[in-house]
Every structure is written in C-alpha cells, then in structure tokens.
C-alpha cells in the first residue's frame, strides 16, 4: 500500500499505493515539482433536437455536453494497477473501467513521461452518447490562462471565458472554452510549466486553474444538424464502437526551459524515424 515511485535521470513520477493513481511529478534537473492527479471522465453528449439548432445535438461539428459536469467512471468499479520494472523502461498499467485503460512509461534517460491511453468501445446501450476526456490537475496558479497551438503554426494564448475582440457571454462554459490542440497544450505559473504533447489533433481546455483536459474519444447517437447527416458513431472490426489508442507526452520544467524542451520534443515526435524489416538471416559481419 506504500506509494510507488518510478524515476529516471531526469523525471520522477509518484503513484498512490492505494489507488494506483498518479500523485506527483518532479523534474530532477531543475527541481520543478507539482502535485499531479490524472483522471479519466466522460461527458454525456447533448441529444439535441435535429430540427431546431437552438437545441443542437453534440456531433461531428459540435462538441456540446449535456451538462457542464464531467462524470467519473462507476466508483464501485475497483481500479486495477500493475507495475513493470526493468532496466530500460518502467511502466504502470492502469485500468479505469472495462473500456478505459492506460500505460504510463518512463524510459531510461527520457525527459518526458509517456502515457498511452486506450479508450473504447464506448458503450451506448443506455441510449446516451459519451465523450471521454482525460484531466490533469496540477495545482498551478494559472489565472484562467492556457496555451494551445491550435492554428497549427504558433502557440496561442487562451483565456477562459474570454475573447480578445468581443465580449463573450456564455451559458455553456465547457463547449465555449474548448479549443483545438494540434500538437501541444500547456499551462504555467511564474516558475513552472506543465506541457502535454499529443500524437494527433485533439480538443482541449483548462476549465479550472491548474487543470488541463483533453478530449480522447467520442461516440454519439445524434446528428448535429450541420451538414454531415449522420451521428458520429463509428464501429470497429467486431461491430462494436471503435477502440481508440494514442499517446500523451508530459513535460515538466521551469518556464524558461520549457520552450526549448517542447520544441525539441516536437521535432522528435512529428518527424519520428521510420522502421522497416527484412527476414534476412545475414549476420552483422556479413552485412558490413
């Protein structure tokens, strides 16, 4: 039941011994340290009324949760966590529900923590479309500010419940504050920056100070009446909902160091080496 820590030369991650959940993250070089909780939750998609846009459904074009509160997975469901230790990589395997799981990895010498999430097939037999998010809570005092690279070119400053060129009035604070994330989203205070890099374009926000949430997978039952003409409800090879798998890379450092860190990481991720194989029986000596 003791807390479990995995660490390499640069980073340390602490997990709660009782729940198996992430508890804190520390950069061993700069000393930057944050409490870090991560949860998986979901929104119920708004079912809408396809004939009246005012009561619009959540769908392919529109993210519109039924309520502003995201829901936890069934609390009665026991979370299951395994850890794998080795010389090159340490892993924590987390199971949040029968259809949501994650592997947290720390490679030798790596300056990032890798989180591989697997979500789906999202059950919809209760007649409710669901939109699954992961939420990182850091405790950083961010004053409603977060940053995304949503235009695909530059990092843009986002301010919660605010638009730079007009006065925003919203009754739907979740949808109104979601922005596209092409490759990265980050938050910081005066000293410390927490960055999440994604392996694909996703949506995300910071709905409370110190938090980042990222949309992972959606399965919805109603058309949003904006042109596509069908619900966002793709099925996989077995006819059930699709299983989505992807990675988040977490970086923690001082504000000063973080720009170089996430840009260097971006090059590595988005111009990654390509692999190919042969069944050649040739030995290295013969090859050389």
């Amino acid at each position, binding site marked *: *039941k003791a807390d*479990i820590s995995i660490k390499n030369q640069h980073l340390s991650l602490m*997990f709660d*011994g*009782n*729940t*198996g959940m992430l508890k804190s993250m520390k950069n061993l070089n700069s000393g930057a340290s944050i409490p870090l909780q991560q949860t998986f939750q979901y929104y119920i998609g708004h079912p809408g009324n396809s004939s009246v846009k005012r009561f619009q459904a959540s769908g*392919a*074009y529109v993210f519109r949760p039924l309520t502003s509160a995201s829901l936890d997975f069934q609390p009665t469901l*026991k*979370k*299951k*966590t*395994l*850890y*794998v*230790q*080795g*010389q*090159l*990589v340490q*892993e924590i*395997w987390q*199971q949040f529900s029968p259809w949501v*799981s994650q*592997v947290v990895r720390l*490679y030798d010498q*790596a300056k990032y923590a890798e989180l591989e999430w*697997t979500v789906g097939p999202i059950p919809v037999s209760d007649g409710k479309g669901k939109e699954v998010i992961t939420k990182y809570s850091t405790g950083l005092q961010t004053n409603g500010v977060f940053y995304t690279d949503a235009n695909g070119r530059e990092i843009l400053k986002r301010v919660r419940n605010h638009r730079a060129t007009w006065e925003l009035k919203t009754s739907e604070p979740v949808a109104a504050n979601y922005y596209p994330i092409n490759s990265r989203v980050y938050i910081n205070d005066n000293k410390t920056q927490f960055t999440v890099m994604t392996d694909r374009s996703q949506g995300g926000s910071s709905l409370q100070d110190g938090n980042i949430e990222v949309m992972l997978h959606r399965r919805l039952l109603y058309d949003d009446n*904006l*042109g*596509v*003409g*069908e619900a966002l409800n*793709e099925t*996989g*090879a*077995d006819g*059930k909902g699709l*299983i989505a*798998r992807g990675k988040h890379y977490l970086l923690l450092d001082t504000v000063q160091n973080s720009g170089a860190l996430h840009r260097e990481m971006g*090059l*590595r991720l988005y*111009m*990654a*080496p*390509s*692999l*190919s*194989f*042969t*069944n*050649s*029986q*040739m*030995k*290295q*000596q013969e*090859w*050389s």
Partner: protein
Amino acid sequence: LNIQVLKEAMGVAQHHDAVSGTEKQAVAYDYAMRLSRGNYECQKVVNDAYKKLFPKQKEVPPNQMFCNLLNISMCQATENNKQFTMTVYNPLGRAVSHWVRLPVIGKSYVITDPNGKSVPSQVLPISNVTKNIPERKGSLAENELVFQVALPPLGFSTFFIKMSQQSIKKQRSVVGQID
C-alpha cells in the same frame, strides 16, 4: 508515379471535411483507402531506395516489410521470424536516439547494431487490453521487445535481431500488482 498516388490522396484530404473529420462514414472509409494505397506505393519507393543505398551484396537484397500496426503491437515481420533485420531512417538533420517497441514471440533476444556492438534490450509482456483489441486478431506476439537505437542525421542504421534461447536476466521485466 508511385508517390503521385499519395500526393493525390493528400490532395483530396485537403477538403475541410477530411481535415476536421466531419465527413460521412462512407467518405471516411474512402479517405482511409486512398491514404492507405498512397502509403503502400510510397513504401515501394523506400524499398527501391534502400536497395540502392545498402552495401553491395551477392544476392538480391530482400524486400523491406513495413509494420503499420505497431500501435496495437502487431507486426508480421517481427512475430513470424526468429531472426530479422530492422532498418531505421532518421529524417532529421541531426543525430537522434529513438525507442523501439517490437511485438515478438520470444522471451529473450540478441540485438547487434551496425557496428557490431550489442544493444541492451528489455522484454515486456503484452497486456490483456492490447490482446483484446479485435483488429489484432491473429497476432502471435505475447511480448514486446524494447530497445533504444542511435541514428545518424538524415540517414539510416540497420540492426540485427535474433531470438536467443539463453535466459538473459537483465532483459526480463518484473511485474507486480498494486491493488
């Protein structure tokens, strides 16, 4: 001519529906098919390039196989061969190191880099979550082989990987349950 197939598929995918994912499902399948064909044709080009770049050999060099399903730990080339080579191309203009995870059937492997040096590796079990992904049906791999490769700028390195009967203690992973 080969890369034109992918260029045209990418051209089609500049439509706003493909960029944002607001296309109908049937159209999504069509986009995926076009991109898949383009990807396949470009892999032929890479194959031809490697045949010119590799050291001269007495026999015709074997075709390169590409593993598009490594994200669900599935790869025919690594699962069905006890011995194989892996060539890794680095598109960046500077040297990088890169972590590789390969689905395998064995529990112990010997890896040699292009200079004949042994590469440290670790073998981990594949989780039940991964094994239960329906698209992975037919995969034989029970484990993943993890190791780090060092790559030259804008260049490639070839690694030689062979299943070992010896039990190498340091390759093993220790698995425990928290609760």
